[in-house]
């Protein structure tokens, strides 16, 4: 178990290194290939040579690319010092560099936006897990019934809708036309929990719709599989009450798969939900990244990409471990 965990973590670290190298390479090389100078992007309209030079020094763009990458990586392990005349800056650990545009620490910006994304990644998964599994379970227990057919059709329809369309239409009607909810304006949980939930309700629903549909289909399919297994027949033959058969015996393997899926989805969501966040104007990581892209703010793009990859990789490790704990059949080799 421990050995497996260690191997898994080593793999995760190498994966993250590869992601950071590829991201760094692409984002810092592409401007070079296309002839656009990151320093000029930073300088704005006025691009006199002094300004460009100053920016290059400040951002470390005067160093070879590999050294820049090395310095960047260093920031994950220790604080970095940017010395630029009177403009000495210490970027405390973990340092993800400084925004090209407004001189703020990327780490600070991310920390600032993370609660929004986290809120999204807490509420929506609860909704989709509960509704998805419930619906899928009901469907599987009465296959080919009206309820099954109807819910599977709805699920398929929900999967076929683009999330930004659902989000936009929901917002148009619920907020603008019917005034059931106030307009979305993120408020911190600690500030006012009720208002927090009210503001996030629509984003949660629109995000959860798609996943819930997918989970319902998945639950149903795997449960139908399981119900055909011999051990279920055995359990029934033993005369166990149907409720026990379903809850104790059938749901266990289904649950294992759902947990796996759930872990990975939540992990991916923690890195930011660009479409949902931008349609609802939620200032989360996805929007931070998206805005940074439109301003060519490379350090922010890098930071958000690597953080998102980090969550995905961590979720993978966690899911693997959980999987091993829950399902003893899995060989940890």
């Amino acid at each position, binding site marked *: 178990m421990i050995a497996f965990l260690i191997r898994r973590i080593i793999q995760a670290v190498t994966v993250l290194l590869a992601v950071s190298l590829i991201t760094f390479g692409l984002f810092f090389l592409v401007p070079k290939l296309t*002839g*656009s*100078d990151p320093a*000029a*992007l*930073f*300088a*704005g*309209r*006025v*691009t*006199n*040579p*002094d*300004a*460009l*030079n*100053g*920016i290059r*020094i*400040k951002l470390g763009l005067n160093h070879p690319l590999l050294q820049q990458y090395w310095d960047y990586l260093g920031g994950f392990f220790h604080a970095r010092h940017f010395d*630029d*005349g*009177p*403009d*000495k*800056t210490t970027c405390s650990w973990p340092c993800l560099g400084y925004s090209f545009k*407004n*001189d*703020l620490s990327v780490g600070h910006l991310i920390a*600032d936006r993370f609660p929004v994304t986290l809120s999204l990644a807490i509420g929506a998964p609860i909704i989709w897990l509960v509704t998805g599994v419930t619906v899928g379970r009901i469907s599987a227990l009465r296959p080919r019934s009206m309820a099954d057919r109807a819910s599977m059709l709805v699920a398929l329809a929900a999967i076929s809708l683009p999330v930004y369309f659902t989000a936009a239409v929901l917002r148009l009607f619920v907020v*603008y036309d019917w005034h059931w909810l106030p*307009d*979305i304006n993120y408020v911190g949980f600690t500030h006012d929990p009720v208002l927090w939930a009210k503001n996030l309700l629509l984003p949660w629903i629109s995000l959860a719709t798609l996943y819930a549909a997918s989970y319902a289909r998945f639950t149903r399919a795997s449960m139908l599989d399981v119900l055909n297994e011999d051990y279920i027949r055995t359990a029934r033959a033993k005369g166990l009450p149907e409720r026990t058969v379903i809850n104790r015996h059938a749901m266990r393997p289904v649950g294992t798969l759902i947990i796996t899926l759930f872990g990975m989805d939540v992990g991916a969501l923690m890195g930011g939900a660009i479409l949902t966040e*931008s349609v609802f*104007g939620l*200032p989360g990581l996805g929007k931070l990244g998206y*805005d940074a892209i*439109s*301003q*060519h703010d490379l350090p922010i793009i890098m930071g958000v990409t690597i953080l998102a990859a980090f969550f995905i990789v961590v979720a993978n490790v966690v899911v693997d471990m959980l999987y091993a704990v829950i399902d003893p059949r899995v060989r940890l080799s």
Partner: protein
Amino acid sequence: MSNRRSKVAFAATSVVLTIAVAACGSSSSSPSSTKTSGGVAPTTAGGDQGNVAAAFNAATKGVVNASTTKGGTLNLLATADFDNLDPTRTYYAYSWDFQRFFTRSLMGFDSKPGADGTKAVPDLATGKGVVSNGGKTITYTLKDGVKFQDGTAITSKDIKYGVERNFAQDILPGGPTYLHDMLDEGQNYPGPYKDTDPNKLGLKSVQTPDDKTIVFNLSAPYSDWDYIMTLPSAAPVEEKFDQDPNTGGAKYANHVQSTGPYEIQSYEPNKSLVLVPNPNWDPSTDTIHHQLVNKVVLTEGLDSDDMDKRLLSGQGDIEIESTGVQSAAQTQILRDPTLKKSSDSPLTGFTRMFALDQNVPELSNLDCRKAVEYATNKVDLQTARGGPIGGGDIATTVAPPTLPGYQSFNNYPVGSDNTGDLTQAKAELAKCGKPTGFHTNIATTNKGKGPKVAQALQAALARVGIQADIQQFDSSSYYSTVVGTPSNVHKKDLGIIVAGWGADFPTGFGYFSAIADGRKILQSGGNSNWAEVNDPAINAALDDMTATTDAAQKAKDVQTIDHALMDGAYYLPFTYDKALTYHNPRVTNVYITNAFGMYDFDSMGVNDGK
């Protein structure tokens, strides 16, 4: 400069303030809260002759809801953050307008509606610059009792220090470079951070004989100097803050020290900014700025449609970016008389145009450029910009109607309905030797109205066989590196460049110098002379403008340049930009100042005490 809404001019060419048709309704000032305590009877309200009743476009003609009511909170909205909050580094027009809350310079724009707002009047200085030495030496004297927010008295050395910061381009890039360009005079002053002078006052071209006097020594006469002194980048900065590694240099943006009526209580970039009254601002020293509300809250980072909803539902007072509401809100306003009453569609002082780059092979021939001019459908372009109310009036000149010296003329009439003169366009094509048309590219940003404008032009040119591909570029680097670097324009074959231009300060020189001066084609980026115009007659007229102090002569120079630009078909102007803006009915002292082509934020109050 289109994403940087800039300074405008209305002229002394008096568009006489159409004085309140219904002056009676003027100022619905409600039961007052507290009355002005200090001596600040808002000069804005300027007696009663400028006051007008709330009506569509009323704020372009006079002061709407004139009132001296104090108290309440002004709620401002914005989609994005300022380019920079550091007065030295900011270049957006709305940001300059916003700086008036907390930044004072030697001179400032008068807080008056319309063209009167473009006058440079003394602010920290006791009077206009005293010119001597054949126009090359300009001297100002400071007022008594002017202080920074920490109570330190402002001296001429603080102003000199602020000017010196413009030289530290390596640390503080982004702002206008007039001060750097005109005061360096070959001394290569490195900026205050690398200054060897113990007091960090080593810039030789600016002298401070005593704490109240500052002397600028220019190498050539420059008759617009008072305007240069209105720039936020000419504002005083306290050396002790700026030399402190924790609050100075690039970090000063987060520690701006106020000299105006408000100070910054908190600033979270892309989220919010809160201003509260500055206790060390003495209204008796100030004839321009106002301190009516108890708090100014700016909410940033809003989605633009969301921002419109908030504005129209009264959750906000004005949108400071002043680029006009989005399409949905525009329709809503135009169809609702109550909303329309609180709306204005001012000329912003921008001209929307295409630059036709003569150094791109397909457009090197004058007749080919003329073919493009004639084939244009200006009605479609106007619609693409948002129509006559949301977009602007159809343009035929590079100079906007608000520029002093502007005169209307039309070298390339595009039919009585403005949809294009295809016969003439084909004739020009034949003359340039390409009777079946040619292929070129249209460069545009990927955001806002640029892509729509490009599509409208593309469809219009296709009618005479000119095939133009649309090339979209990222807006953040569009003006600096994409179309701002001539070699890049040539390499990518960007014959037609979607652009917009407004003056940095409301004079002919402030408008034309960057887009028409052949000696200022910047090869390394940030070039605004997109068409690469280099015409001796234009260059001479530009020089003449800065030398003369005669308004009539300046006006003549404006016309000379405008005609030369159109004769050469270097630019294809299509709209004089307008922006449909809305103000909450509760806001008092609402007017458009032509200095910025938008509301004067700092004069505003609210009449419901909230």
